[in-house]
């Protein structure tokens, strides 16, 4: 089997899928030419992510990484959410095939993009280094596990 049970479980049963009209921050990463786009919506209250939703155009692992990333940041502080790494996403899914690692990078970047948008909207200063892009374009990413 190409995917772990965990990936298939999140793919067939994605959590927090949908749009959010009154989001406090929205981040979109990837592009359709590469075959995946993730859009993440967050609701923030007192520095805590109280709700999160996603929309994804992409393969099975793109949907699964989006889904698990929303679970991993829901109820967490913005600071905690910013620490989410693609490696943690891969581990939480019990692994991804090498050529799908880029989906986990997209998930990490979608979370960061949404938080950055929240900061921008609210005029909150932030360290741009924390949002450095991993360039999740049409590349095959590798990961040390």
């Amino acid at each position, binding site marked *: 089997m190409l995917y772990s049970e965990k990936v*298939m479980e999140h793919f*067939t049963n994605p959590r927090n899928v949908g749009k959010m009209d009154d989001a406090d921050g929205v981040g979109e990463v990837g592009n359709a030419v590469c075959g995946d786009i993730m859009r993440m919506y967050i609701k923030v209250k007192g520095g805590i992510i109280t709700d999160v939703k996603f929309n994804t155009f992409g393969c099975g692992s793109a949907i699964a990484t989006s889904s698990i990333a929303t679970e991993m940041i829901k109820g967490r502080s913005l600071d905690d959410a910013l620490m989410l790494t693609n490696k943690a996403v891969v581990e939480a899914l019990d692994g991804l095939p090498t050529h799908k690692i880029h989906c986990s990078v997209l998930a990490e970047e979608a979370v960061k993009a949404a938080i950055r948008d929240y900061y921008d909207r609210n005029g909150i200063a932030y360290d741009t280094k924390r949002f450095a892009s991993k360039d999740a374009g049409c590349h095959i990413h590798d990961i040390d596990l």
Partner: protein
Amino acid sequence: MIVYADNAATTRLSPVAKKAMMPYFDEIYGNPSSLHTHGQVAAQDLKKARDTIARCLNADPREIYFTSGGSEADNQALYSAATYGEKIGKKHIISTKFEHHAVLHVLKKLEKEGFEVTLLDVHKNGIVTADEVKKAIRDDTVIVSVMYANNEIGTIQPISDIGAVCHQKGVIFHTDAVQAVGHINVDVKAQGIDMLSLSGHKFHGPKGIGALYCRKGMQLRSLIDGGFQERGKRAGTENMPAIMGMAAALREACDDMEKNSAHVTKLRDKLIDGLLKIPNSILNGDRKSRLPGNVNMCFEGIEGESLLLFLNERGIEVSSGSACTSGSLDPSHVLLAIGLPHDIAHGSLRVSLCEYNTEEEIDFMIKEVPTVVAYLRDMSPVWDELQKGERTHVIQ
């Protein structure tokens, strides 16, 4: 209900083929090269299988070489022509942009070895014209290789016309007919084909067996050296069960071709009409000049691998030309060759039917596919942008 509709990938072994194979495991197990009775019985049956294959193609049995499959046959045809070309100082090869990788990757290698390769355009309809082949032929062209029918979009090429052009110009004509043999009429003599590749498991024969037809008088080079099997052109003890199974399957497919084709074409057309009702969907490849069982469509705003996996969850086994299903990040070279933009090519679905499929299965797919497409579109930010007018529709 489990619907298997990925027959362009591989087919179920037919009961007739299975029965034909069985004695060659433990009854007629002799080596056809052996002189004793067990060996000679096998040799006789090997000859019969070769006769059968030849008859189905209108070839001479001495023009049939068994190989491990379609890929090996393609490799052998092209490398043989290249060796010949090298000898006579002709180092130009013509093929098309949407050939199978068993052809394209060989051509890439030959390019590195100093050959010049022209890959012809296949246009929006997925069909190359004989006139374009004619115009591309140069004094130093050694071979033209054009597939009989495309494995992804099912478009059938004007093989007889291309054969005529090649003969007129004195150029070798090879066709990868892996998707065509056993499904539509193939006649190597009438169509002017010099070399042809076929594969057993595409017409309900076993896997791991194929054949190369090579017209008498052509120079064939062996890729595997050793014993004198296949008249010295392919060493190794013959895979008797597979050869017998393939021959039985091909005979059955050719005998039933008219009946099967009518049934499968009817199912195909019903499915195409049913799926085209999905908004912003298109059929890829010419609708008329098309294999009886091939349906290939794109649905805007969704990605093919997730479509494939969700359909699998619902018991529908199909295929996609999406990047994610290819193990790379690029969508199918075939869909790009017919001019689809990357984002559309990612959302493709290939359904390949055979005579075992039923109308009930088609109805099931016509019911399930739109549901899954709608679900994925609902989840897709691309679809959202299309709906809001922030992105322009490519498929109307």
